[in-house]
């Protein structure tokens, strides 16, 4: 199978389907063969649904023959394994749920199915979206296709690895403290954490009710826009779901950046950042200026308090897991167990104060976004972490440039903006006002059109 097909865009695949140059069945068979060849090394998939994929592909072919114009028709996708799939096991990357077969689909799974996608399978996630699988775990962690000795990021680790290796054209992710954007950054792909409430979380395993977001991951900004279009919208089954109307995410992608104001919050986001990450980020700002954007520094004074987000995450995670972890602690992986139990040590007063700090960060960020249209930062302070570092039992929770935008709930995109000297991807993070996904995607798309970082392929893919 050629790279051309494995790395085809959603628009490109759709165009070739409609010209009869390719068929969904042909692409599905080719991707299943590619998965069979590469996944024993990569470990991106936890469950492969070959029969289902071929059935979906045949249905898509029939629909194409009838002239069906849905843009996701016949597009091969896979779901992070915390999205419930009816009749297909959903493990959460956990021994606790290793054999669980749900009776319902998550709303996002159903919406992508209704959009005509082809389901290739389920993608490994960090255990319950919070802890990497240590050696000896029931499930193996995914590896980074750019360097197998490094992690692909988490928790949507399989999604990032599969996309970077050309095994799927789109994937779901979830993001509580950066779990869409981190794997996107470490794997050299694109991930969008939409506004809190924009995409349903119904039928997705919970980590932290007030921080969890669901969203799309893909290889290009435009592909993310197509996938978001099919998953966004009100869902009465998610209590946090917004009733705000869904906009058009594709048309604004053609905009240039004249008149766009980009703010750079220098405090907090550049502490402990590698020099080559800073260099790549500054070069990206130069590119954005070259496209006509006005770039200026902005201040968010309380951002230094963002690490308190962990109090919220841990307390809510413990609340969710309390019964299972007290009754079956042996079914939780090392480190994850302690991370969750640490939530029991957060007092009610501390949780409340952390929410007050969060409110202040939300207000200040909203204020900053009255003077600029988008905030830009490096997505991560460093490129992908080696496994040997990630497996250090004393490693706590790394400082995050992504978690602040889980606190604020604002739409935030991660996209490739360079490579480290060791050949690992680097990433630009763009965040906008609530429900202005189109603005964030528009800036990202314009950047992508004049750069080639997203077109590089990892060694494992060849």
């Amino acid at each position, binding site marked *: 199978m050629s790279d051309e097909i494995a790395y085809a865009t959603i628009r490109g695949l759709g165009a070739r389907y409609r010209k009869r140059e390719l068929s969904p069945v042909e692409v599905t068979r080719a991707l299943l063969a590619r998965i069979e060849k590469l996944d024993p090394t990569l470990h991106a998939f936890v469950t492969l649904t070959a029969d289902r994929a071929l059935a979906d592909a045949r249905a898509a072919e029939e629909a194409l023959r009838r002239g069906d114009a849905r843009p996701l028709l016949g597009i091969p996708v896979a779901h992070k394994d915390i999205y419930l799939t009816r009749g297909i096991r959903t493990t959460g990357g956990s021994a606790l749920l290793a054999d669980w077969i749900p009776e319902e689909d998550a709303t996002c799974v159903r919406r992508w199915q209704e959009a005509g996608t082809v389901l290739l399978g389920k993608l490994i996630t960090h255990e319950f979206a919070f802890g990497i699988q240590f050696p000896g775990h029931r499930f193996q962690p995914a590896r980074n296709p750019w360097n197998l000795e490094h992690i692909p990021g988490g928790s949507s680790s399989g999604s990032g690895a599969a996309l970077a290796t050309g095994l799927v054209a789109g994937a779901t992710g979830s993001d509580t403290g950066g779990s869409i954007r981190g794997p996107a950054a470490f794997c050299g792909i694109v991930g969008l954490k939409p506004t*809190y409430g924009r995409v349903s979380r119904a039928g997705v395993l919970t980590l932290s009710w007030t921080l969890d977001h669901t969203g799309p991951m893909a290889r290009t900004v435009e592909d993310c826009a197509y996938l978001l279009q099919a998953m966004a919208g009100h869902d009465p089954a998610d209590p946090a779901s917004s009733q705000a109307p869904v906009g058009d995410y594709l048309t604004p992608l053609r905009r240039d950046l004249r008149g766009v104001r980009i703010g750079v919050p220098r405090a907090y986001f550049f502490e402990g950042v590698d020099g080559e990450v800073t260099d790549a980020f500054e070069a990206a700002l130069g590119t954005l200026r070259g496209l006509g954007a006005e770039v200026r520094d902005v201040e968010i004074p309380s951002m*230094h308090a963002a690490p308190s987000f962990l109090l919220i995450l841990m307390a809510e995670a413990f609340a969710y897991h309390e019964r299972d972890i007290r009754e079956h602690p042996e079914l939780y992986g090392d480190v994850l167990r302690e991370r969750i*139990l640490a939530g029991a*040590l957060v007092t009610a007063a501390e949780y409340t104060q952390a929410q007050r700090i969060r409110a202040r960060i939300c207000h200040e960020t909203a204020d900053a976004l009255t003077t600029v249209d988008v905030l830009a930062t490096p997505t991560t302070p460093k490129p992908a972490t080696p496994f040997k570092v990630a497996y250090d039992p*004393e490693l706590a929770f790394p400082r995050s440039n992504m978690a602040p935008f889980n606190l604020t709930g604002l739409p935030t995109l991660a996209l490739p903006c360079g490579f480290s000297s060791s050949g690992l991807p680097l990433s630009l993070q763009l965040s906008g006002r609530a429900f202005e996904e189109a603005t964030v995607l528009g800036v990202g798309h314009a950047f992508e059109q004049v750069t080639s970082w997203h077109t590089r392929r990892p060694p494992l893919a060849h």
Partner: protein
Amino acid sequence: MSDPRELTIEELRARMRAAGVTITENRLAMVRKLLGDALVAVRALDSRDVKTLEPAVRFAPERPA
């Protein structure tokens, strides 16, 4: 003299007893760092100075069209 805002190992053990949870001995340092780092900003906050700051978070999910 230790910083009063720092989470000590004794305090960590007291919290474990109060919560009725056991954390593996070789993970105590990790949990202490995890919780300690997260508490820095909260312990620096004097709630009497910011009385009007409510914990409510608004994401404007009901924003009018």
